């Protein structure tokens, strides 16, 4: 009996191995051919593209003449867009660093084998992509429009010019909120707490040889709230809310589900900010329609 079982088992193993072999192709020619063709097609495509469109060469660099707007290369315009809404150190350095570390950490959090090797193969993956992309896109659009005080313009279009109530001035944009915190009689921050001088004994950069003098630190509380605390709360809080929402309605159950949701949301925000920064920002980095914009050449 034991021998029979062993024979049957080994036959099954051999059968499996044979089935796997039948599923396989030879790399030469089946893969090498595809690689060769795609290399050929892309070479041709880039030659044609390069014949059709010339790369730009503007006037010789002149440090005395700052163009308006001055823009980074397109793949950094997402960061430059963030820069308009928050503290420069946060937008230019901390957010990208944290984002890259978080992306690198994905496989160590989502370490199961589900959904591996096939496009969106876990149940409900498609709707999670759509949910993440939808929330990321429209959430960012709403926030950008709000920070550009577009809701005020809409209000004035309906109720006439200058009709925006002064008591709602804090709700115009992030900058207006900061000014309101800083100067308004109704500001919740007592006047003595708006600037907190910490002196020059905290940041002893002179000891490290970075600066000649230690940095004289004064904490600007309204600035801290508007430029740092609110953006960080939004950037951390909104994704968490989204995940909790998807979990409560039963769409996101596993870690893979949450990662699909979050990564899709991130991609949507990333592409949206890049597009807004590239095509919708004109003079003074104000919002413009692309057709009203001075042409942006990369």
């Amino acid at each position, binding site marked *: 009996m034991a021998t029979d079982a062993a024979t049957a088992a080994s036959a099954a193993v051999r059968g499996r191995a044979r089935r796997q072999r039948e599923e396989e*192709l030879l790399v030469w*020619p089946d893969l090498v051919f595809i690689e060769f063709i795609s290399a050929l097609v892309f070479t041709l495509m880039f030659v044609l*593209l390069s014949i059709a469109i010339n790369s730009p060469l*503007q006037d010789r*660099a002149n440090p005395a003449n*700052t163009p308006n707007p001055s*823009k980074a290369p397109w793949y950094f315009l997402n960061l430059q867009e963030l820069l308009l809404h928050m503290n420069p150190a946060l937008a230019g*350095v901390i957010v990208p660093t944290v984002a890259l570390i978080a992306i690198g950490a994905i496989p160590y959090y989502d370490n199961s084998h589900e959904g591996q090797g096939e496009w969106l193969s876990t149940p409900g993956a498609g709707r999670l992509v759509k949910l993440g992309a939808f929330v990321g896109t429209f959430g960012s659009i709403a926030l950008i429009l709000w920070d550009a005080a577009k809701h005020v313009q809409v209000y004035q279009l309906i109720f006439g010019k200058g009709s925006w109530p002064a008591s709602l001035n804090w709700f115009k944009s992030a900058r207006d909120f900061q000014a309101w915190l800083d100067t308004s009689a109704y500001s919740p921050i007592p006047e003595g707490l708006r600037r907190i001088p910490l002196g020059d004994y905290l*940041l002893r950069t002179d000891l490290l040889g970075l600066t000649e003098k230690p940095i004289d630190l004064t904490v600007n509380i309204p600035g801290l709230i508007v430029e740092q605390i609110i953006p960080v709360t939004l950037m951390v809080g909104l994704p968490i809310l989204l995940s909790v929402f998807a979990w409560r309605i039963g769409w996101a159950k596993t870690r893979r589900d949450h990662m699909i949701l979050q990564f899709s949301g991130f991609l949507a925000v990333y592409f949206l900010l890049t597009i807004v920064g590239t095509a919708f920002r004109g003079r003074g980095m104000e919002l413009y329609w692309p057709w009203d914009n001075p042409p942006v050449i990369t």
Partner: protein
Amino acid sequence: MATSERPESRGLGDRIYDLVFHSVLWQSIFRSGYPNTPRNQMLAIATNVFLHLHPTRIHRTHVKITHTFCLGGLSFFLFIGLTITGVLLMFYYVPSVERAYQDLQNIQTNVRFGFLMRNMHRWMAHGMVLMVLLHMMRVFYTGAYKPPREFNWIVGVVLLVLTLLLSFTGYLLPWDELSLWAITVGTNMVGSAPILGPPQQFVLIGGFEVGPAALVRFYTLHVIGFPLLAATFMTVHFWRIRRDGGLARPL
């Protein structure tokens, strides 16, 4: 019948075939014969230094175009294309503030195929950034970062950063208004980091503003520093794909 057992007379085609593919020269280069039998096809992959990054056999689903869209391979292809066009551009380009812009004009107007090479270099550079981003999306949505491939995902993230840096350092080289201000805006972002930002920015552009020192630094990083780093990480990336059993498969 007796006649059928006699070897057929060999035609001209067979003779030429023998002359080429069984010649000492062919054998000395490729070791195996023409890849028209499974054995020779596998040897063609296994005995070739460039092709042996591939396994000799591959699962049927992995050659489906819609599984990978060739995105990783095309990123590498663009890297090679950029190296070739970049080397050609280097013949005519001197990274000095006095000459750079003039050299660019010279490449565009006086060098045969110069404008074409410059265009190809630029569009391929943009293409590579896009391709690497798309490749990352493909890997994510096919769940190909899962164990045992976790670390290769990190190597991929490093390669994405290197791709951006390669493109960014190249952006300054034409020394026109676009490059100067794009790099000024970009490096100001670095400088905005708390405490360590300003010294980092100083090291990066070799001064307090983008000038001759920045041009030499960006050029050196662009043509040798980052390409070497990228090539190193690519080697690790490809080697690990192979060691981890090729593309991810559903369990």
